[in-house]
Structures are given as C-alpha cells and as structure tokens.
C-alpha cells in the first residue's frame, strides 16, 4: 500500500537513473557522489536511492534497516543536484529528505541517526554532552556574552564540543577580537542550529530548535550573526526564515576579505608554504560562496594556493554532511569520502589542507591520519591560519 504522506509521489518516478549525478563537472569519474564512491553499488547512487524510495513508498519493498542505511547514507552534498540535467533537479535531494521525514514518523531511522536526534532534543547537541560544557572552547579567552554588540558569534555544536573543532572556534574568536569586530557569544545558552536535524528529516525537532533559537535571538536584539560553521550559516540563512527568523547572517569567511583589505586582519607571513582549499558543501554548492575563502588564503604572504582537481562545484564532500560526521554511515573503508578527499588534497603536493568548516576539519584530519599523511599535510581551518600572528 502506498504511503500517501510522501511529498514527492508525483515526481519521484521521473528520475531516469542516467548516472549524471555521480560525476563532477568535468566528468572525471563516477565517484563524486560520496555514498556511491564509498559503496560502488547502484543502490547507493542517488538514482538508485530514489528508485528504492519509490519502491518502498509504493509498497513494492518493505522498509528495512538496510534501506534506512541507504537512505541516510546520502550526505546532502548537492553534487547530484548540480549534475542532474532534468528540470526537477532542484528537488532530487528534497525527495531523499522527504523519505527521511516518513522514516522519522515511523521511528525507523538507523540507530545512530536516532541517537543523534535524541541528543539534540535532550541536550541541545548531537554528542549528548551537558550544556554546561558548551562554552569549554572559550577557556582561556575573554569573550563577552552577547548583549548589544554588532554581531552574535554563533559557534555551533561541533565548534563547541568537538575537541579538534574547539581550536577553530577559539581561533576565530581571537581573530575577530584582533580585528576589533564587535561581537558576543551565547556561551552555555547556545543550542544546536538544527541544520542537520532538517537534513535527517526530523521536522518537529527542527521547528522546536529553530523557534527556540529565533526567540532567543529576538529577545537579545540580535540582528547580525557570524557563524563558524557553514551548516549553521545555511540553517540561519535558508531555514530560519521559514520560521520567522530573518537575520543578517554571514559565514565568517565572508567577512575576511573586507577585514583584510581594511587592514584590520594582518595575515601571517609563511615561508614558502603551499595550501589547497576544500570547499565545504554548505558554503559552496548550497550557498554559492567559493571566492571569499580563497581571497583570504591568497592574502597570506608566502603561501601559494593550489587547487585540487575537484574544486568549487566539483568538490568532493568530506562525507560529514547530514550528520554523518557523527552517524558515520560512510566510514570504515579506504573508499570513505574523507579518505578519498585526503588523497586528492595530498596529490596537489600542498603542505596545508585549508578548510572553512568544523565538520570538514574533523573529518579530513581523521582521514589524513588514517591515510598516514600527517607528516606530509596538515589540516587547518582558515581561522586558525589567519589567527597566527603576522
């Protein structure tokens, strides 16, 4: 029996499964879809996934744990949307998220996804850690709570809790302070941004999280927001307006070119260092920002920016999107997208792999270690690179 609550029933059959969704812009290979790159079975391509979803919705196959894994193995990187030549391409990721909506309603998500959502609901972060530890990243820094400053600096759950991402969060705070940007933080009152909750299909929890954040922002008089994470940036820019939250939101990398130009940030001088930059999906393909991070990196004296063959719209996702940095449905293989991306970065000969996302930072740093490349290439957030004194 067909599941009538599925939103894209009148459209999902239109996927032809031609396989364009697997390629990057230059057609270099069929491995630019992270889940297909990892598994290399058609069921894990987006076309295969859409055909499976349709079969489940139509009652041709049962919802199983394996089907749930396949549906949740999509990291929402939007490569498929970029490459699909058909007129409904803007909705092919939404078709996957809509299937997750139904799985959530039925409580049939993979256990790690369930845990992720429970943790956000109960603790305000996916790690299930106490809210009183949320401001641990600020230890040793003197940062004012948000009151009436120009910007709210929203750190996000990864920057607040992940031990590696905390360095990036702190580096950005130091950088903003050095640039004399007027900002404050929410500290332990911050909660998850809800971006991954949307991607994982938990609409009810998303509404709760978004409304909680929006009412807090409004109560505090927040008008302008700087985010550490492109995921947060996407949530505030593209999701919160649906709930009445309209803020002037910037990913931090978007402020950097003007701050550098104005002399408020003096990039460090490096000695003959080459840097390659990994485009985060939620900054690049989701929001079209490819230039600002590059401009910031190009301002570093003594550094040469080398592009990976897959860059900008063709960048291979680190595999951490849609909560996969926590749920890890694509891990455990040399074909895990983060490991492929680490090898792509190393192939440029760069000394530093620069990122602008705490998820990418942790995913890629782990991958570099597993690949045994830590002596050859370092992973750094752009905030970390620029916060080193000039």
């Amino acid at each position, binding site marked *: 029996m067909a599941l009538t609550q599925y939103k894209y029933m009148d459209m999902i*059959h*239109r*996927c*032809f*499964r*031609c*396989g*364009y969704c*697997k*390629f990057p812009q*230059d*057609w*270099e*290979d*069929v491995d630019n879809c992270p889940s297909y790159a990892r*598994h*290399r*079975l*058609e*069921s894990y391509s987006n076309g*295969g996934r859409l*055909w*499976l979803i349709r*079969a489940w919705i139509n009652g*041709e*196959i*049962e919802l*199983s744990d*394996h*089907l749930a894994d*396949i549906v949740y193995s999509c990291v929402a990187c939007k490569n498929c949307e970029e490459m699909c*030549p*058909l*007129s*409904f391409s803007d909705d092919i990721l939404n078709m996957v998220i809509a299937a997750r909506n139904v799985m959530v309603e039925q409580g049939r998500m993979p256990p790690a996804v369930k845990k992720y959502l429970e943790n956000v609901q109960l603790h305000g972060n996916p790690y299930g850690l106490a809210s009183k530890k949320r401001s641990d990243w600020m230890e040793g820094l003197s940062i004012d709570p948000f009151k009436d400053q120009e910007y709210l600096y929203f750190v996000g759950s990864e920057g607040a809790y992940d031990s590696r991402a905390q360095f990036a969060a702190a580096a950005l705070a130091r950088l903003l302070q050095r640039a004399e940007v007027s900002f404050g933080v929410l500290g332990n009152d911050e909660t998850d941004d809800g971006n991954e909750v949307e991607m994982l299909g938990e609409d009810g929890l998303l509404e709760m999280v978004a409304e909680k954040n929006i009412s807090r922002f409004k109560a505090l008089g927040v008008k302008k927001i700087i985010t550490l994470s492109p995921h947060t940036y996407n949530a505030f820019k593209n999701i919160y307006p649906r709930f009445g939250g309209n803020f002037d939101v910037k990913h931090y990398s978007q402020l950097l070119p003007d701050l550098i130009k104005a002399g408020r940030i003096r990039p460090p001088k490096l000695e003959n260092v080459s840097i390659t930059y990994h485009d985060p999906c939620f900054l690049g393909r989701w929001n079209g920002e490819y230039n600002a991070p590059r401009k910031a990196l190009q301002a570093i004296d003594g550094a040469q920016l080398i592009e990976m063959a897959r860059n900008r719209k063709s960048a291979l996702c680190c595999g951490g999107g849609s909560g996969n940095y926590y749920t890890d449905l694509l891990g455990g*293989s040399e*074909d895990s997208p983060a490991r492929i991306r680490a090898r792509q970065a190393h192939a440029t000969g760069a000394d530093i792999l620069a990122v602008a996302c705490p998820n990418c930072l942790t995913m890629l740093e782990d991958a570099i270690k597993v690949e045994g490349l830590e002596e050859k290439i370092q992973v750094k957030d752009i905030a970390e690179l620029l916060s080193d004194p000039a």
Partner: protein
Amino acid sequence: MDSINAALIDIVGEDYVSNRTEELFTYSKDLGTSEPQWPDYVAAPKTAEEVSRIVKLANEHKLAVVPLGGGMSLAGLALPLRGGITLDLKRMDRILALDEKSRFIVVEAGISHGKVTAHLHKHAPHLMHSEPGAPAAATIGGNLAIHGQGDLAHPYGFNSDMINGMEVVLPTGEICRFGSCALDNDWYTLHPLPDLQLFLGWSGCTGIITKVSLRLFPCKAIAEQDMFIVEDEDLVPEILYELTHVGMAEDLMAISQEIPPPFNRLHCILVNLSGDSKEELEFKRKLLFDGKLTKYIKDGTGGIGAVGQRIERPQVSKTSDWRKGGGFEYVGAIVPVSFYPECYRRGSEISQRHGIPYTVLGRVIGSGHGMMFSWTYAFNRADEDTVRHAREALHETDEMVLELGGTLWKPAVFGQKLVMDRMDANTLQMMKKVKHLLDPNGIMNPGNWEVV
C-alpha cells in the same frame, strides 16, 4: 550464511556483494520498458582475476552470470532473465596505458566513457575516442558488447571497429587476450592474428570483456555543430550522400522530432566539424555548405538552421522527461542511408498510433556505408498504460525494421527472436555451436541470443 554469498564475499570483499532485497531490487530494473528480473546475488569485482573466480564459482553451481556496465542499453540486455549473479563491472575502471604516438589507450572495461573523455581532455587534448550518445556513465565494455557507435562513426565506423585488443574472461573462467597483447606485446593492434572475435555484439553471452585497447583519433582544437534543415524527408539520403563524399564532417546525423513543436516534421541534418584553426574550419564549412548545400537553399527546399553551435555533451536522458515520467526506450537498427524516408514515415505512424511524440534519428556510419536509425518512445514510469504503449511500439518497430530489410541493433529478447527466426540456418547453427563451445553450462547471460 548462504554459501554462494560467502564465496562471493571471499572473492570481492563484503562491501561489494549483496543478496539483500534493496540491491536485488535495484539490479532487477532496467531503465527501459523491460519487466523486472531479479538476480540472486550482486557482486562488484575489481579485477579480471576476481571475475574469473566468480565465473568458475558460477560454473560449479550452474548459476547464471550477467555482466553489467553502465546499464544504458535500455533494452534489458543486462537483466538476469534466469536469476544468478549480476556482475557490476564499474569498479574495474582504471586507465592502464596511454600511447599518444600510436594513438591508443588501454582501459579496464568498466570505465565510463565520461572518464575516458575527461582523461584525454586533461592529458592528451589532441586525441579523442568515439563517445556514444548514451549518458556519460555508459561503459566502454558495455558499448562494445552491443556493437555501439559514437560521435566518430562517420569517419571511422562502429566503436567495435575501433579496438586494438581485448582481454576477456571466458565463460569457463580462463582469462584470454586478443591482438598483439596476446603475445605479451603492447596493445597496438588487433590484427593480423587469426580472427577470434567472438565477443563483440554478444551482450556478454560468450564472455566478459575486462580490458580494452581503444583507438584514439585526432581531436582538433575547435569544434562546432552546424544544422541544415529540409522539410522533405526524401531529400535526406541524397544530402547525406553529398556530404559523405566531401568527407570533412566528424559526425553526421539526421533527426526529426515532434518536440519542440517548431521542429515538428522537419529534418535537421546535424554536421559536426572540427579544425585546428578558424581557417581550417571555414574551409571545411565552405566545402560542405557552399559546395554541396547551396543548391537546396537556391531551390527553396533547404535552409541553414544554425552555424557554429557549441557541441554539448549529449543529454539524452532529457528525453526521459518528455512525458514527465522518467522513461524512454528506443529501437535501433542498422539500415542503408536510403532507408531514412521510409524509416521516418513508418516510425512516426507507429508513434502516432500509440500517442507518443515521435523522435527519429539517423547517424551515418562510415562514408554512407550504413546508418544507425533509432525510433524513440518516451513513457511515464508511473503510468502503466504509457509503458505498455511504448513496449508495443517497440515491438511493432522491431517487426517493421525486419520487414523493411533492416538489421536490429542491440535488440531486446523480443527482437533477438525475430532476428534469429530470419537468420540463415547455417549461421544460426554456428552461433549455437560457438555459444556451446565457449559456454558449455550455458551460464553467461542466459536468455539472450539463445538459439533454440
């Protein structure tokens, strides 16, 4: 655990084997109108040795083996008609050698055409291979297994005429090489050894192609597509004859389609030209247009539709959305170029009868030695009635092709039977003997090209 599944896992690794419903469902489906056919296992090997071990395992258990490339034939040729193991060959996708001076590239057969094109564009931009009109995910091996053609068909013929050597896993598991590579030499020629080419066009019924040496051809710096339009379909063969006499085009096609409406009932002759300079391009354009097409413009029977258009990668999958339904399938046939008018007329009648906007296309092969003519029928995957109409239209077209004296290209099982019904009895018997000799247990893609 299922012992076959365990054995497959032992060969290719746990990540690349499945006997779960989700994978079996996925591989039971073709993109065209074929009914689903479920495999019992799916495996994605990485090497010819793994393929060989799987084939030997299948022989032990008398299990069918169905090799699958990009799955773009649309005719159900890689559907497991008798269950068994579907072998997804797309992990076998390495580029093994590129010899620019001898103009060949050696690849594993599961590589996509898109990857080969991108590699050449990056590493040898002055060389190209013949890329089919199928989506870029179509594989080199799959295309050879169906005698495909591509965008260099006019100067160089079928893609299966453009190979310098092959490695094949035989149905009994031996790994064989054909051409100079069989002598452990480089992969520079298929000839002059005794002809053992029993694999091309067999849809995997006689073995699994695992490596290929592809001939490469000069890729000029500038390329363009020009269009000449006529209303009278009877003019198309003579125009193509004139153009093939000049021999300057890279690709020559005639297309007529109901959508978009302004092109309905017109015949667009697409001419791909290339040159290393604007002067070269202009020279070729003059020879073709001034030398051969002006007379049609003067007598009012033809006109220039476009000149100097950029050649985009074919986006044939857009055809699938004409009925907002995610599906199309076509009958392809190899016919003399002179058949174009009748093929068009009969095809548009069939389309009209089934309420499907007509689309026909003819691609010139060689110097007018033949034409691949296709009749495309779009359908709505969610509307079984339109699927049925498309299927019936395909069958009627198969019959019409043979009635006209054409030869079906990569026919589905329905068309294969029609072909074999008309085949010379001695030839048919030889097919049967070849198949039995190579595949004594009948495990390779059974149900296809099966002589009763």
